[in-house]
């Protein structure tokens, strides 16, 4: 736990104490956030914390938000979530896939607390799930990457081989090959969400093996820094990372949780909160793209914008057939698209990805 959190917890205790002494029962409603990385990762957790700040801004004095950062997935997270629930938080956002089971477990013991789990698939009466269709952003990125690569090798720094990440890799290569059939993707898994050193090393390894565009599904800007210093392209992840790679960043996929967090907190406060599943993308603005690099030719920018607009108006689906699996078998027939269920459980590579998917 971090100083800020401790300070805010102390603050909350002080507020509660004052309220008791004054005899008034109405303290501020507490909204909790559990983060997998540090708020300063400049990626995933950073964007969730921007969402938390949006809640504070929108609801002002009515709420008090607290957060605990760098909480390891697994038993640690259960302790933190349980502590938050016991502490009287009205609604708790748990923002990593690995918090799924701990969240459900704690939710059982606290039926009056509302839980919001990011990127999970298990729900309960008091547990909602939400996630972004990041693959839509990656599909747009894939079109750009396919046009911009000279070596026809795209390097991809992967965190964990879970469907979320595999889906992103597949969306990228499908888009890239639709404009450049010779493109291949090489993947280096680092088995961590956040370790700048290792993420950078993975990027170096991929560049050394011929990649001239580095994409990533990890949370630090280190791969972009490597791309910048080695003179290749890169795409930012979760937030706009162009400060770290002003020349190299083609664009970035930006997670935007603000409207969702504000809406769900309001619902929890006014009693209209219901358990549900939200999976929004470019259309609802939960996924957006950073400014395109000026070095991208106008026709490629046009293509990217058309792809983005097509996804928004529904005329383009990233996983529209025909799609071949890595081994050449047909996964989706011409004229069909993959349904959300298959997308959520995606555990196979499409054609064009090098190497085997770790199980």
């Amino acid at each position, binding site marked *: 736990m*971090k100083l800020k959190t401790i300070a805010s917890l102390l603050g909350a205790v002080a507020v509660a104490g004052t309220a008791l002494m004054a005899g008034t029962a109405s303290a501020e409603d507490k909204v909790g956030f559990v983060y997998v990385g540090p708020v300063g990762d*400049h990626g995933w957790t950073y964007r969730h914390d921007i969402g938390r700040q949006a809640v504070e801004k929108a609801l002002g004095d009515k709420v008090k938000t607290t957060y605990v950062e760098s909480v390891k997935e697994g038993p640690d997270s259960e302790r933190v979530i349980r502590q938050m629930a016991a502490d009287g938080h009205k609604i708790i956002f748990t923002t990593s896939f690995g918090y799924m089971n701990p969240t459900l477990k704690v939710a059982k013991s606290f039926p009056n607390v509302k839980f919001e789990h990011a990127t999970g698939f298990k729900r309960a009466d008091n547990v909602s799930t939400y996630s972004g269709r990041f693959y839509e952003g990656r599909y747009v990125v894939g079109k750009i990457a396919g046009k911009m690569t000279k070596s026809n090798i795209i390097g991809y720094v992967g965190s964990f081989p879970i469907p979320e990440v595999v889906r992103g890799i597949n969306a990228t290569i499908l888009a890239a090959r639709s404009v450049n059939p010779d493109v291949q993707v090489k993947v280096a898994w680092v088995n*961590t969400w956040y370790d*700048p050193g290792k993420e950078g090393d993975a990027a*170096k390894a991929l560049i*050394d*093996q011929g990649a001239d565009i580095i994409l990533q599904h990890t949370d630090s800007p280190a791969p972009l820094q490597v791309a910048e210093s080695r003179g290749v392209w890169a795409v930012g992840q979760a937030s706009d990372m162009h*400060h770290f790679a002003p020349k190299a960043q083609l664009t970035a996929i930006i997670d935007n949780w603000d409207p969702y967090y504000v809406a769900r907190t309001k619902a929890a406060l006014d009693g209209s909160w219901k358990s549900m599943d939200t999976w929004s993308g470019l259309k609802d603005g939960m996924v957006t793209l950073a400014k395109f690099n000026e070095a991208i030719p106008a026709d490629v920018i046009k293509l990217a914008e058309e792809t983005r607009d097509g996804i928004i108006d529904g005329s383009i689906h990233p996983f529209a057939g025909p799609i071949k699996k890595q081994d050449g078998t047909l996964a989706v027939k011409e004229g069909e698209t993959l349904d959300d269920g298959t997308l959520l459980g995606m555990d196979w590579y499409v054609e064009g990805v090098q190497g085997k998917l770790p199980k």
Partner: protein
Amino acid sequence: MSYEWLVPVILTVITAATPLVFAGIGELITEKSGVLNLGVEGMMLVGAVSAFVAATVTGSYFIAILTGALAGMFMAFLFGILTLSLMANQVATGLALTLFGVGLSSLIGQDYVGTPVAALAKLNISGLTDLPIIGPILFGQDVLVYLSFVSVIGVSWFLYKTKAGLILRAVGDSHNAAHSIGYSVIGIRYLAVMFGGAMSGIGGAYLSLAYTPMWAENMTAGRGWIALALIVFATWKPGLVLVGAYMFGGITILQLHAQAAGLDLPSQILSMLPYLATVIVLVLISKDESRIRKHAPACIGKIFHPAA
């Protein structure tokens, strides 16, 4: 067969190993004096953020590295006050130092998240650096890489060739004996602990100035703990700390290359390899108990109560 691919691999291995060498060699001196400081991770983080802030404010990398060292030293000094003067438990205090370092570093670095800095300059001797293969490896590193080698040689020489080194080892092996012949056990341990802090601080500075030139919270990502394990791995011998750090870095980098090259092995196992190798070597070393007993400081972790 072409050896072209080898050069970038070796260059990456060097950057991955260097912070471990610094933190490991510093903690080695600390432990040789009989003190176990588990706060390496915290000292590295504070060193990393201080060096980064100093680099952005002054623009001087000399001042930045110095600041990193001093910041690590300051953390170690706090540890010294608690464990050496106030005789707190070393294990608990070391763990607390790490937690404190995590919080303190993110507090200091709050306004610096997302500010990039130019990477520490690499040596470039025209003629030498341009040599094939050995040029970039031997003559193309930044100053801290060379300093890491110097520090290993220096510490070896100090421990085994100087009287001061002998006294340090004596304090670590039998503080009562050293005390009874008139050496200031506490004073010597303070110096050793602070040297360890300074080196951890420089290891941290290497992370934020050269490895990934930025400040990001918790950016050490466990390297302080790996450095601690390296010392046991090295059975408290400086040269083996260097070997261990390069082995660890080397396997980490090679597994990433193996993946990128499409080697058909589960990435989880590949990621596990460096740790697995460390454990295996530890087991092999432990079979020969005398090796450990000969080099491990006998008084490690024990609190010294000066006889009245």
